[in-house]
């Protein structure tokens, strides 16, 4: 069984952290992963930077631009991660836009992920329909779990389809927004979280976008299996560097 699936079976609320690979410094990638594992997070999303990250707000955009300037590429990231499984056990997901993967070659990319020990992928601009028709077989052949997003606007019918194609978790976007755009949840979110919880989907849901502190983390995990923190974490490393990660995680998880 895939590390993601194992993790999802644990009887606890999960905290997943996104960071941009090669940021703040090109060689921070592995350090951040190790520090995150040591600080007790459950899953990590390694952001493969892209020049035109459409679904992201300014924080992740800027970190991506900086990472690219630092020299980050798909090739460099794979090189940095090649021995990661000698020291890290938690599930690792690569999150990135489709074009860099497409240029690397989808099969070659999946193969490399498999060799390194990457467990899953999140590709915001690869729609579930295209994935299902063209790429699902390849992803599955290399044991990769592809994670899809749903939003408050996603129809019940489409959620059901996404649930049927997924075999890990569903990434529940908290509100109609780019990353890092909103802080705090209102009644609208609560209603949406509840609506999805009631659908009794086959795949557990993890909520992302707008989770920045203990209050939002607690609210989100009331309804879902876990929560993803991205922009707030990137802001933290921008400000405090990569060595006080455990303080940040503790403040979010236990308040």
């Amino acid at each position, binding site marked *: 069984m895939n590390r993601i699936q194992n993790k999802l079976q644990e009887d606890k609320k999960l905290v997943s952290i996104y960071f941009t690979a090669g940021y703040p410094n090109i060689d921070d990638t592995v350090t951040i992963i190790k520090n995150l594992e040591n600080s007790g997070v459950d899953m990590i999303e390694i952001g493969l930077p892209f*020049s*035109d990250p*459409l*679904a992201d*707000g300014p924080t992740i955009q800027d970190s991506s631009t900086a990472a*690219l300037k630092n020299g980050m590429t798909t090739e460099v990231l794979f090189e940095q991660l090649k021995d990661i499984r000698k020291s890290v056990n938690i599930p690792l997901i690569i999150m990135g836009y489709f074009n*860099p993967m497409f240029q690397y070659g989808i099969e070659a990319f999946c193969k490399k992920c498999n060799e390194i020990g990457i467990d899953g992928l999140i590709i915001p601009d690869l729609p579930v329909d295209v994935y299902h028709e063209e790429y699902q077989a390849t992803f599955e052949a290399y044991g990769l779990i592809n994670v899809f997003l749903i939003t408050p*606007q996603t129809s019940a019918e*489409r959620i059901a389809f996404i649930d049927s194609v997924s075999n890990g978790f569903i990434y529940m976007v908290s509100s109609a927004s*780019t990353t890092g755009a909103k802080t705090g949840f209102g009644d609208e979110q609560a209603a949406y979280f509840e609506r999805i919880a009631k659908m009794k989907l086959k795949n557990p849901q993890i909520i992302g976008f707008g989770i920045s502190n203990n209050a939002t983390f607690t609210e989100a995990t009331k309804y879902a299996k876990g929560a993803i923190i991205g922009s707030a974490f990137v802001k933290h490393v921008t400000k405090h560097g990569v060595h006080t990660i455990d303080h940040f995680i503790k403040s979010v998880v236990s308040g």
Partner: protein
Amino acid sequence: MKLKVCGMKYQDNIAQVAALQPDYLGFIFYEKTPRHFDTKIPDLPKSIKKVGVFVNEDLNTVIEKVNKFDLQAVQLHGEEAPYYCSILRNTKLISKPLDIIKVFSVKEGFNFKVLEPYEDLCDYYLFDTKGKLPGGNGYTFDWSLLEAYPSTKPFFLSGGIGLEQVEALKAFKASSASKYCYALDVNSKFETEPGLKNSASLREFKMKLSPNKDMQNYNVNDKGYYGEFGGAYIPEMLYPNVEELRQNYLKIMGEPDFQKEFNKLLKDYVGRPSPLYFAKRLSEKYNTKIYLKREDLNHTGAHKINNTIGQILMAKRLGKHRIIAETGAGQHGVATATVCALMGMECIVYMGEIDIARQAPNVARMKMLGATVVPALSGSRTLKDATNEAIRDWINNPVDTHYIIGSAIGPHPYPDMVTRFQAVISEEIKWQLKAQEGRENPDYVVACIGGGSNAAGTYYHYLHEESVGIIAVEAAGLGIDSGESAATSVLGKEGIIHGCKTLLMQTEDGQITEPYSISAGLDYPGVGPMHAHLSKTGRAEFLSITDSDAMEAGLELSKLEGIIPAIETSHAFAIFKHKTFKPDDVVVMSLSGRGDKDLQNYIDYFKF
């Protein structure tokens, strides 16, 4: 199967529809219909037969009309008895051959025995829907009833046939019920008002029913692809909006009240048709026949408004009241701000910070029109980044906002929708050229390409005309190999940008690179998926023109023809320095925009 277009009424419209070369045009001589014909029939190609439609008319009147209008067929739509047909058939008062088409309205339980007395007295039957009016009722009957057709006389199939029946018609053609079906008769489903036919949808109908099998399809397929390019690679957050548009755009565009409003605005507000002007001095200089399609004379000074008018009407029908757009040169921004002012809608235009600086007059125009101009500060701060910002806005405002994309780019259905709105350009070229040169098809159509919307519109009705050469002119910037270029067809590889798979300038690692061109409107690292397909299949010839060649060509056009073009457009005119045409070649150039907005750039360049 032959095609008859019935219920023709207006002179210009008759000429437009005749340009599509249907086999029959029908004129209704029946006073109780709004399609009643009472004017002159313009000269028509000999291949088109003129049909007079009559309802229980006095025989003398029928004979008079046949002679007066030189009709080659009469269609009898009332309860004309067999002897009536017999008199018409044998009268000496009509000297030329006349076909008689007898109409029967069909519904369930129709008894084909009623045909028997007419079997030797008419040439064709026409089967129509049984409705309130004699024809023009707008709905179909159950064609499978024709399985029981006992005769071998060829018949016309009529009644409510429209674009939405294409698939059903294909099935009908494959069935035994169509064995003696000789022609299709269309009318109200192709009208924007009674008697006024929409030639664009007629052309589409014709093409869909009998596509030229030897040629590739250059239009979008059902899944939103042009060959391998296109599709909708969008984050899930955008899916509901794009899907809503995909499901509705063709339906809305086909609605008569949409067509009517769109055409009226194009005519009265935009000033269409734009002239097709024979450029005498330019033609003399390059020893070929050059025509200019004057999109620069449209309101707001470029082709962009064709699309924004269409999209704002679409947005209204989708219930949206907030409009966002991206802009490069500012022409699309101005065109969007203009239609938003016209419709009283909120308008936000994203524009790269660099472009804001180099296109100041357009920024001022947008503000004066009431739009908010938001600078895009990320990346290269040009068109690509403005597009990113507009997409982010749409993600954050999914319910009330429509995104008016200005070029033939973006996720499906945008490239196709924008192309269809711009297709009015080639639609007009066809009949205008016919009037001036006696032929619809030039030897070449030429347009500049950034994302490619003026090009898409200029090519659209020529894509499947093999005799027409298609030339696409890209911006080479400082030169293809200079590292400062926007020539996507040469420098681009297949990739994904702004929601579609197309040719894209990018690093080996798949990062989108910063293009460069002196013209803000061509400064885009991708190209519309239709154009990527035209390039890949070789249907279009792609040329790239440097900044300096473009500027010189702009100056030359100004001095030879008294027309200052936009710098984007100037690129297209530089091809005459690089490509020689034959003296009798007809070359139609899309003069996509006027140069007022670029005056400062021309001044800086030429040091006026």
